[in-house]
């Protein structure tokens, strides 16, 4: 079982994950239309690139934009979740070992203690994100079952992984549960709106180009996100 789900199944999962995301990127970029979007993407590549980079950069920095600054609570739980959600799966020692054993790849890793803390922060943040969904009327009105499904999908690998690493129960059970929910999440990403893992960069770049090329960038005014 363990061999299979960390071997052949993992190959399939990675293929679907990477292939699906690649398709998303190609579909998005091919669908951009200078006239319908009303952005002269190719006429001013330098202005566009500058706008895109600024638009991505400031939003990646905690409290880097006015929107982040005026909502400090949300910003804290947003980054609390995302920092762990990106760093831990990518650089956990256990994952690096697995990559080395299965695929012969040497992969960097972060200290286990840091990974534990980041995971705990991610789980707590996700719970708070859920509570925010319930408690704020302006968020409740746009929330559907789909949003809850995604919170569960995204949360399961972290909870199961954390329980396994902490040895709070039957390790074998929790590690298998962790691998399967992790693989489920990876497969889900390209096929749900979780494709924001690439989509965020695409849409931010697009709006950045819009402002950089058309809406003020060429007037020497950088959009003060």
């Amino acid at each position, binding site marked *: 079982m363990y061999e299979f789900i960390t071997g052949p199944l993992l190959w399939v999962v990675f293929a679907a994950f990477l292939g699906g995301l690649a398709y998303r990127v190609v579909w998005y970029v091919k*669908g951009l239309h200078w006239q319908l979007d009303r*952005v002269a993407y190719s*006429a001013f590549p330098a202005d566009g690139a500058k706008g895109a980079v600024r638009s991505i950069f400031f939003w990646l920095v905690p409290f880097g934009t006015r929107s982040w600054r*005026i909502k400090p609570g949300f910003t804290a739980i947003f980054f609390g979740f995302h920092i762990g959600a990106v760093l831990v799966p990518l650089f956990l020692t256990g994952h690096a070992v697995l990559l080395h054993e299965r695929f012969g790849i040497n992969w960097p890793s972060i200290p286990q203690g840091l990974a534990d803390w980041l995971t705990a922060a991610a789980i707590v943040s996700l719970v708070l994100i859920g509570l925010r969904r319930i408690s704020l009327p*302006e968020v409740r009105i746009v929330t559907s079952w789909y949003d809850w499904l995604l919170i569960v999908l995204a949360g399961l690998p972290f909870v199961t992984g954390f329980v396994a690493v902490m040895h709070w129960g039957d390790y074998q059970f929790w590690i298998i549960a962790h691998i399967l929910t992790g693989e489920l999440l990876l497969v889900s990403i390209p096929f749900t709106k979780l494709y924001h893992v690439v989509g965020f960069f695409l*849409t931010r770049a*697009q709006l950045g180009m819009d402002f950089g090329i058309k809406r*003020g*960038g*060429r007037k020497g005014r950088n959009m003060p996100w």
Partner: protein
Amino acid sequence: MPEGKLCNKQPVTTKEQLDALLADTRGRVYYEEMKSLEVDKEKLRNSLKASLKSRTKTWLEMCAHCGLCADSCFLYTVNGRDPKQVPAYKIQSTLGEIVKRNGDVDNEFMLMAMETAWSKCTCCNRCGMYCPYGIDMGIMFGYLRGLLFSQGFVPWELKIGSGMHRIFHAQMDVTTEDWVETCEWMAEENGEEWPGLEIPVDKEDADIMYTCNAREPKHYPEDLAEAAILFHLAGENWTVPAEGWEQTSLTMFAGDWEGCKQQVLNVYSAIERLRPKRVIGTECGHAHRGTVVEGPYWAGRPDGQPPAPYIHYVEWIAEALRTGKIKVDPAKRIKEPVTLQDSCNYVRNHGLAMVTREIMSYMVEPGYFIEMTPNKEHNYCCGGGGGFNGVGMYRAQRNVALRKKRDQILATGCKLVIAPCHNCWDAIRDLEEEYKIGIRWSFLKPLLIKMAIVPDHLKPKEDEE
């Protein structure tokens, strides 16, 4: 497919149709007919297929429903934080549903979508700045308006506005003769005070071609005279085209994309005909957005640029003050607390925030200029943008919308508001009328004329005697 005589899917293209609509007081018959206007689902599906591409699709699908856009929307905050005013909700429940159902929507749905598109969004694009994904709901509402217009679900005044543009190439029934006569009249009327004042029509190869808003010749001809006086003072070699002078675009507010294209091509052909070095538009926000920012795309120009450099009036004033073409008498500068309205259409959407502030530094005694909070790109809509000012059916909602600007102005403590935009100017006038907070409001032109130093050779002769 039942369609009304007045309310139907066809744009207004003849004087008879236009007169029939105008004769229908407040659109009573028009809106009655709209209640039974059927949706052409096939056409709607085809429109989606042809024009809904990856950018907009992704915006709709990927929205994380985080609600961060709520507080960015002034209509949400002035309406008691009504969750139904959350931008994401407004767009998901209208355009989002049309897309989800692939056009399978009914009359009742379209009536709701129309109300949302024209009374719950002014297309100010502020929400786009506050969304982590950069989802610009103002752009999507513009798109939704296009779909609604093509199905005949558009407020009466904007159906008329679109018709005016299609028939007169102007938002009001100002003909070429009316326009040229107004130019002559204004030059003559002010000629005594300003010897040699001219409004040259159709002069080829001038340095500047000036374009304006039809309400200037129609209702405020002194605005045109003021533009002429300032060009005269600055010694500019300028002209206005006999045809193609109207810069505004109610078609843009209406979602009449074909009409937008016709309108902007009319201006561009004047540019090509007269070959000015550059074009300057009046103190209007949406006219600039329509003709300079969006217009090139409607006209199919792949570089997104008009045929000649085309600047906003505030850019020209800043340049004239900076280069000394117009000099301000320091004794006549504004010496009372004064604030400035940032027009969404050329500040948030065209980067001119610092240009108007440069002007303030010349026109206002240091220490008297007071910023609204928030300001520049983060400023709020005046409350009447995107056509909201002009739709009678939504007047009550518009008046509520004005409260944001009222409170912003009150917080500055200023009694004078400079509003270099027709729509903002109107909204601020209306908010004074509605809420009586004791303010005055002005365009830049009249203020600048009052404080400009007039060189001796431009003064009337009797002064010299």
